[in-house]
């Protein structure tokens, strides 16, 4: 922490009891500069376009200070939906240097967002987000990027294996490769294979992929449909052991790909993967649920009965959580739920999947949970 940041922090803490001067003055500053927000990067929405009934494409212009993403990285998008700030991770489907004909002077990133079972976020997006409004971004994150090796080791064939909306990071990478070829930076002439599984008629960016295949001579694209008899085994059969394989899709899909690759003796160290659904804790049967608990940085795994309150459950396991009234009034037992769904016993309401504050004394686990006391 540099001196200025520390000074800011100490002043804000002493005078205003806030985290920073920015967060104290934020409400005032936003009156003048709606694009401004403390501790988040802001981005203006340039366009909201439905690619399909259940897929939305956002084009965003991040503020200047936003660090450039590498192709394949994702970003946490935080949006205010009906007064509530909600955050979800999304891969960026445009490459860092990609040129956008419509906005030649602005830096633009594109997010491809699929409706999921937990529809609160995605359905809210299509209802409340329009061109011109502002959203919040984290810095780009993630290691699922094209390694330097792609450019340095021309002998390595590249295999991209995607399922459903897992195509998004690959769109960024392919655009990046196309640009490198255009500028003759990329020496490699070894084959690049894209295996893309989706339901019939649900492949995204078909036209764009066709155009990319023309720009990248060594790229071949296979759009496959499992129901039409295309199998993962057949698609991966030819994958050479020396190739670098990048996998993106649901967790189950990633497992299947790993199995197939193991079967043809492709070495696991030549694979990179990114899958949705955070590595979910296993579902237990008859009224129990897995809980991952973080207490002062220490992690514990627990199994709690689901017909009991979380507070009682934790206490039975010898974990002392802060508590007060035990009837949902005082909020002393409040903690952060990172992921998972809880039921509020007072209102019967089910929570959303993402991060939020919950009261242990009136909450029951409905799915596996990650909690931070």
């Amino acid at each position, binding site marked *: 922490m540099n001196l200025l940041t520390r000074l800011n922090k100490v002043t804000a803490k002493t005078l205003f009891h806030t985290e920073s001067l920015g967060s104290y003055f*934020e409400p005032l500053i936003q009156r003048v500069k709606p694009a401004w927000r403390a501790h988040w990067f802001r981005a203006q929405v340039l366009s909201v376009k439905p690619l399909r009934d259940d897929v939305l494409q956002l084009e965003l212009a991040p503020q200047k200070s936003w660090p450039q993403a590498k192709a394949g990285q994702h970003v946490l998008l935080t949006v205010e939906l009906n007064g509530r700030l909600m955050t979800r991770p999304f891969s960026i489907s445009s490459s860092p240097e990609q040129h956008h004909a419509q906005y030649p002077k602005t830096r633009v990133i594109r997010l491809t967002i699929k409706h999921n079972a937990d529809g609160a976020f995605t359905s809210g997006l299509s209802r409340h987000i329009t061109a011109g409004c502002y959203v919040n971004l984290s810095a780009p994150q993630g290691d699922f990027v094209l390694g330097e090796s792609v450019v340095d080791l021309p002998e390595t064939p590249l295999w991209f294996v995607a399922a459903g909306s897992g195509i998004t990071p690959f769109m960024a990478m392919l655009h990046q490769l196309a640009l490198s070829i255009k500028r003759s930076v990329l020496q490699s002439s070894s084959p690049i294979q894209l295996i893309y599984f989706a339901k019939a008629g649900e492949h995204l960016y078909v036209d764009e992929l066709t155009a990319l295949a023309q720009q990248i001579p060594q790229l071949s694209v296979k759009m496959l449909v499992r129901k039409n008899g295309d199998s993962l085994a057949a698609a991966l059969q030819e994958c050479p052991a020396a190739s670098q394989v990048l996998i993106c899709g649901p967790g189950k899909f990633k497992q299947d790909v790993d199995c197939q690759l193991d079967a043809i003796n492709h070495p696991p160290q030549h694979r990179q993967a990114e899958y949705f659904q955070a590595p979910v804790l296993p579902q237990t049967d008859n009224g129990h649920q897995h809980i991952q608990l973080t207490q002062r940085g220490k992690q514990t795994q627990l199994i709690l009965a689901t017909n009991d309150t979380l507070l009682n459950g934790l206490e039975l396991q010898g974990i002392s959580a802060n508590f007060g009234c035990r009837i949902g009034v*005082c*909020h002393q037992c409040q903690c952060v739920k990172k992921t998972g769904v809880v039921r509020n016993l007072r209102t019967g309401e089910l929570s959303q999947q993402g991060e939020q504050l919950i009261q242990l004394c009136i909450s029951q686990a409905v799915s596996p949970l990650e909690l931070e006391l």
Partner: protein
Amino acid sequence: MNKNINFELLANELDDLKRQTLSEVGATDAAYIRKVIVWQRALEWGGRVLLMLGFIHPLCWVVGVLSLASAKILDNMEIGHNVLHGQYDWMNDPHINSRQFDWDIACDGKSWQRIHNYEHHTYTNVIGKDRDFGYGLLRLSNDFAWRVKNLWQFITYVNLSMLFQWGVSYHELAAERVFMGKKKQDRSSKVDASELKRRFFSKGGKQLIKDYLLFPLLAGPLFLWVICGNLIANLIRNLWTSTIIFCGHFTTDVHTFSQAECENETQGQWYYRQALGSSNILGGKLFHIFTGHLSFQIEHHLFPDLPSSRYQQVAPQVVAIFARHGIAYHTGPFLRQYSQVVKRILRYSLP
């Protein structure tokens, strides 16, 4: 406790009302609290600047004091009190939630959450459990034996009101007997005495430095103007909050309860106790905002974590539910409620 009330039905009706109202909470409530915060910041900084312009015309200074006092009242009541209750936690906003928020008064927010959110709101008006009833200083009902010091308790009350933020700040230390007296056997504190002391001095110290050293020093030659302005603004805020809070619990008809009465209480009985332990104040929209909607003390005690801006909306339905169950709904204009408070303090100064 009145045995003729159908407590189960009462609980269902009030639970339904809460659920129904919570389902409507959303963008308007978030916009509302943000707007109040903008006003608070504008009044605070407008006030601080005007305080320094006193040399142009003394009226600037007067307006500055009033502006700063209003900002401090908003911060204390409509923002601080309600955010610390968790009323806006659903917004997921890192700056507007009960975990991180702290307010511009001497009391550490966490300490207040323990003593107010937990003790006062769980054991409202239960003698021996709710230390807000008389704050350990005043005798306000026959539940306490008369002592000689009660003779001059009106003066004690005036002093408490003027120093109210310090009273609130010292409340938990007094309850835990950190400095004086012997700790009660049945009190088990989750925070040890040294931590309580550290918090008390650190938060209080910051407040003193800010209003009586740093801002006056920034004003240079106008040091005294600013120091007096800050002192008066704090005094106005203290008197205002104390008065509003006393009107919420110490009017004539407010009931007290014994610990035995409240054992194994059902949800309906809990609601009933909140209803009889609180009283409202009639007033206009601005008045409600400056009381932090504690002019709807009854609704606040029934639903302490419902966003404050919704209390006006649920009040008529609460009145209707109480009427159906034959429960008294105590409300009245400010002067009537306040005169009842004064009478109560005076009445119980005598045996």
